[in-house]
């Protein structure tokens, strides 16, 4: 029988690619991708219109770097978090909740190949969204400051990409943890948008400790790099009567930030994969 209909052995790398290809096709046709693009277009459209009309000095009063700091620097992390949660937040939980896993998993393919393929597809979709936002920022920047794109902006875009890689791993881990897609998406958004920020602030201000364990602290390098000179690693502001209290503020240096994001990427990727490998398709 096998002679009649030959089958070729498919390696796991090819399986990763197949999984990525069809998941990307699914993303690319789904409403969600266009909703995300629309959000980006609305944000950058508003930014373009408001800056064009009011010409706020914070944006156009100084140099190109100031412009990119105010525009890209303030919104890039938000865009990263939204796309990570949108494309990664239910990547695995959706396979359970929507029962699509019943079609894909009972086949001669490793779960890890499915997982990595889905991750690559989500990264591709998020990268498109981030790139669209970056391009609109560049178009605006060139309009006000023709002929110069500061190298810090290029670095910042690269850092935002690294942040996206880490945030996507985290969102994937959450999507492996929960069986409900809305919950896993919501958890990713809340965590990355609020919880980590609050933790950062509380640990530095209240405890005076550098929040080196926080992904959003590491992601601070995306906007920090656009500030010249680069913000101090630690600054203490005396407050209260006679300066009796001191409020500490920390900023991740570039190597520190990259290290934090890198560790998050690896730990979360492994954690998510282990969770998915162990997860059972029960209803």
């Amino acid at each position, binding site marked *: 029988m096998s002679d009649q209909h030959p089958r070729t052995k*498919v390696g796991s790398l090819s399986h990763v690619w197949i999984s990525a290809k069809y998941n990307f096709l699914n993303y690319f046709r*789904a409403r969600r991708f266009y909703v995300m693009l629309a959000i980006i277009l609305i944000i950058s459209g508003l930014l373009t219109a408001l800056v064009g009309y009011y010409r706020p000095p914070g944006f156009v009063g100084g140099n190109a770097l100031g412009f990119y700091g105010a525009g890209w620097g303030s919104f890039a992390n938000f865009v990263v978090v939204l796309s990570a949660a949108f494309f990664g937040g239910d990547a695995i939980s959706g396979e359970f909740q929507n*029962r699509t896993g019943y079609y894909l998993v009972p086949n001669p393919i490793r779960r890890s190949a499915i997982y990595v393929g889905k991750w690559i597809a989500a990264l591709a979709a998020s990268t498109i969204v981030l790139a669209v936002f970056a391009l609109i920022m560049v178009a605006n920047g060139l309009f006000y400051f023709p002929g110069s794109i500061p190298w810090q902006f290029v670095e910042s875009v690269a850092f935002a990409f690294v942040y996206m890689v880490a945030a996507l791993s985290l969102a994937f881990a959450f999507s492996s943890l929960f069986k409900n897609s809305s919950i896993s998406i919501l958890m990713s958004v809340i965590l990355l948008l609020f919880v980590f920020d609050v933790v950062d602030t509380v640990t530095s201000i209240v405890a005076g400790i550098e929040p080196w364990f926080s992904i959003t602290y590491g992601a601070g390098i995306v906007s920090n790099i656009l500030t010249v000179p680069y913000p101090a690693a630690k600054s203490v502001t005396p407050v209260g009567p006679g300066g009796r209290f001191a409020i500490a503020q920390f900023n991740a240096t570039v190597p520190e930030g990259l290290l934090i994001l890198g560790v998050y990427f690896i730990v979360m990727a492994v954690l998510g994969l282990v969770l998915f490998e162990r997860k059972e398709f029960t209803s």
Partner: protein
Amino acid sequence: MAPSIEARQLSKNYGRFTALSSLDLKIQGTKCVGFLGPNGAGKTTTMKILTGLIRATKGTALINGVDVSKDKKGALASCSTLIETPEIYPSLTPKEALSMLCEIRGVPKEEKNKRIDEALARVKMTEWEGKKVGGFSKGMKQRVNIASTLLSDPEVIILDEPSTGLDPRGMSEVRDIVMSLKDRLVFMSSHLLAEVTEVCQEVAMIDHGKLLVYDTIENVTAKFAGGGGAIEVGFAGAVEEPLRLRVSKIPGVLSVTKSNDRHLIVKFDNAAVTQDRLFELVAGLKAGALSFTPASGLEDAYLSLIKETL
């Protein structure tokens, strides 16, 4: 080597609940084996373990001799599966969904399109091949799922209630498809005993996570259906007790039980009365008998093996 499916001391607990309890079953060769049992018996649980969707609490599941929990990719290399109405990525078309499986299963490129076209034609979905699956009805999706199991010409096919959600014609088409799958091992769970009788050569019955019997349909029927024949008689009106008694007094009749409001199951001794003579005698009661259907031997065996459900 002949294709095989094997469960060794397979157990599955959900918390304290035992869904599957030391199931031992070895099926080997090219044939169709029906997997029967009441709701909650553990059929889907067994099949999910066999296909790597869940893990056994204890025991081993093997397909073609390969342990599924150790090497799912190897175990399923020549096994296609349809477990509990799967869903396809909604924005893919049937053609793309099948294409994905062809690539995963290593169907040679030059054969891919031909196989997809054939499989879609088998389930009568050719005219829908370019539409997104997301908008399909339940039965249309199930047809695509069935097409998916035919693509790579596997040696082993595991089907969990494949006719779920299909219209009557669809069900009969599934029967034809399964019957045409020669030279393969098909393991199919079903509640449709007529379907199983028609397409399978053997049956395995389980209840409460335990295997009750695994044998050929003839042997199971002979052993458990009780000697003699059985016939189901349908009446125009509701069947009352006096009528049941009158039927049971017909010579040669062993027992009469109500199967529902308007139907009686009449068991009779073949030696004492023939089926056509019984037919005349029941009609002679002038009680409004409308239909006479020979009850399936498998159904009889099933009912006597599985006393109560849940």
